[in-house]
């Protein structure tokens, strides 16, 4: 195997899924000839045809709503939402139809739909192109929500999501698409399991998607000061893999959750709530959160300050150790 970027790994994962199952379709805006604005679907329409890689009209509710119908007809649609901020016109179809139809039909109608969302900031974009809406979906029963952070996971997780009979909201950290190449693991890791990506014993850093790299960099920096930070890549936001988190916190006694999404009512809140409930006596310090602020995503000239960065993470580490 050769190393590839996350964008390429996703492309190969999609290709593999399409080869393995003729019912897999790709649909979205500009996914055909253009190969998507990030080129994640590059070349797929050429090889699988316009009926399997579908340039849809410009309407997100239409994309998701027709995917529901396609799923009922036995297909496995993979919908691309062009940017995070454009998922909201399709929100109703996601929360009221995709998430509920299996339940409504008492298990008789499955919704094997994957909704790919390039998410997060750090690319100097304009409004609505840098958002992190994962908590909305995680709060919605009936959906599964995952985020990849590296090429190998991207390759495997997209295939696992497509073959899932439950609908999966698949978050792709857009600033990592072309960030670094790496090899693909020979075997997939379970889709809904978190992974310790750097062991440590002083403080646990929990991150997903774009913040995993940031957490690892922070841990490397902290190591220079003699602090051993454990970094967990959450990978699955819903369901949460609490055993892995609790095992780590049981050892370190300290947890910091890092995400780009605004602070309040975000993923960090749920993790903090569960950890204080399930590891009440193990915590040496409160669970802390390093996140975006409770503001709209700022103009891009300010995004590096607004987004969690090494300084803010290490500051939280110090706070945690200060308890």
């Amino acid at each position, binding site marked *: 195997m050769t190393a590839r970027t996350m964008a390429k790994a996703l492309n190969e994962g999609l290709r593999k899924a399409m080869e393995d199952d003729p019912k897999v379709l790709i649909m979205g805006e500009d996914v055909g000839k253009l190969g998507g604005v990030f080129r994640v679907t590059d070349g797929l329409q050429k090889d699988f045809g316009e009926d399997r890689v579908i340039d849809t009209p410009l309407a997100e509710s239409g994309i998701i*709503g027709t995917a529901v119908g396609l799923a009922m*007809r036995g297909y496995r649609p993979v919908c691309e939402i062009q940017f995070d901020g454009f998922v909201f016109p399709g929100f109703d179809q996601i929360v009221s139809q995709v998430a509920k139809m299996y339940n409504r039909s008492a298990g008789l109608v499955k919704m094997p739909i994957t909704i790919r969302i390039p998410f997060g900031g750090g690319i100097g974009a304009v409004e609505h192109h840098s958002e992190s809406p994962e908590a909305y979906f995680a709060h919605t029963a009936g959906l599964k929500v995952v985020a990849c952070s590296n090429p190998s996971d991207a390759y495997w997780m997209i295939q696992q999501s497509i073959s899932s009979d439950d609908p999966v909201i698949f978050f792709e950290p857009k600033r990592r698409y072309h960030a670094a190449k790496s090899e693909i693991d020979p075997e997939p890791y379970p889709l809904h399991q978190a992974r310790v990506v750097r062991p440590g014993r002083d403080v646990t850093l929990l991150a997903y998607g774009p913040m995993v790299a940031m957490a690892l960099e922070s841990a490397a920096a902290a190591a220079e000061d003699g602090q051993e930070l454990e970094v967990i890549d959450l990978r699955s936001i819903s369901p949460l893999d609490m055993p892995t988190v609790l095992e780590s916190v049981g050892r370190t006694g300290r947890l910091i959750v890092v995400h780009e999404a605004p602070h309040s009512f975000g993923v960090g809140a749920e993790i903090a709530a569960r950890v204080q409930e399930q590891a009440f006596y193990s915590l040496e310090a409160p669970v802390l959160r390093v996140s975006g602020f409770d503001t709209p995503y700022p103009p891009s000239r300010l995004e590096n300050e607004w987004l969690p960065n090494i300084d803010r993470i290490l500051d939280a580490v110090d706070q945690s150790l200060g308890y």
Partner: protein
Amino acid sequence: MTEHVRAVHPEPDMVQLLTPEGQRVEHPDYPLEITDDEIAALYRDLVLVRRIDTEAIALQRQGELGLWASLLGQEAAQVGAGRALKKHDMAFPTYREHGVAWCRDVDPLALLGLFRGTNLGGFSPHEHNFNNYTIVIGAQTLHAAGYAMGVVRDGAVGTGDPERDTAVLAFFGDGASSQGDVNESFVFAAAGNLPVVFFCQNNQWAISEPVTTQSRVPLYKRASGFGFPGMRIDGNDVLASLAVTRKALNDARNAQGPTLIEAFTYRMNPHTTNDDTRRYRLGSEAETWKLKDPIARVKAYLLREANVGTEFFAELEQESKKLAEHVRAGCRALPNPTPESVFQNVYVDAPDELLKQRGEFVDFVSSIEEVNA
């Protein structure tokens, strides 16, 4: 108060094959070859469907249902459309298509369960080729368009093989025509030339809002702006509904693309059993529409023009009584779902956390039951 320009022609140019007086009329575009026996069969559908509705309303009054959405007045539109479907066609209802459900062999008890609160769907969409009721207005029209995309991809249009070529029928109301989803479904259907027929029951009202709140032109005209044909039918005429829907479905199966049918009809009852029409419409309006009753005209035809004897009506009366009994007794006997069923069918592959919630919940409910016992 501002004056708004509002001009909906009450009944332009609409296809009618059976007058309110029970007279057969011909329409050049929609020739209908139909035997008297077939008309009698439609009559049976209409009568039985109305009976289900009547019983359901009574059950609601008796506290057996939380709510019921009556189809009174819309039987012809629904039965005509429902009988135009082939078994392998697929239909997507709103929450009022009890008449179509009947044509798709869905047990009325499944529908009652939804309004009683014992289920959220109640039957297999795949088995009946009829989707579960959809309550979010308009959402199902996109599902229909998507299903039709699947049909196209299965190569099940335009082959000329009647067992293979498949059409999709999407129901929605006059109010729903304003929703983004419905208009997006028109976009997808037109752009993809999809085998889908949109069947709009314009029953003049969206709860308390008259159709003029939604549109100042007849709704069937909407289609032309998207690039496919639209037409209006007398929605209280089961023959018109059958003939026009049949033709549109045939066109769909033959890869001729989508059609919009506006069935001009009337919601004789309140929106649901919770609604109070006196707040927003005149009783005289319903009186006028009574003269166009969808069942009376077929009966008039059968009595006057057709070879249908009185025993047909007597037998139907018996059948109707039996059905009523089935509905009444069956409704009362519908089992309450078990508490743990809440946790079933949320996911195909349920997460541990949810199984834990289920376990705690089941334990808790039984501990409470023990205490109470």
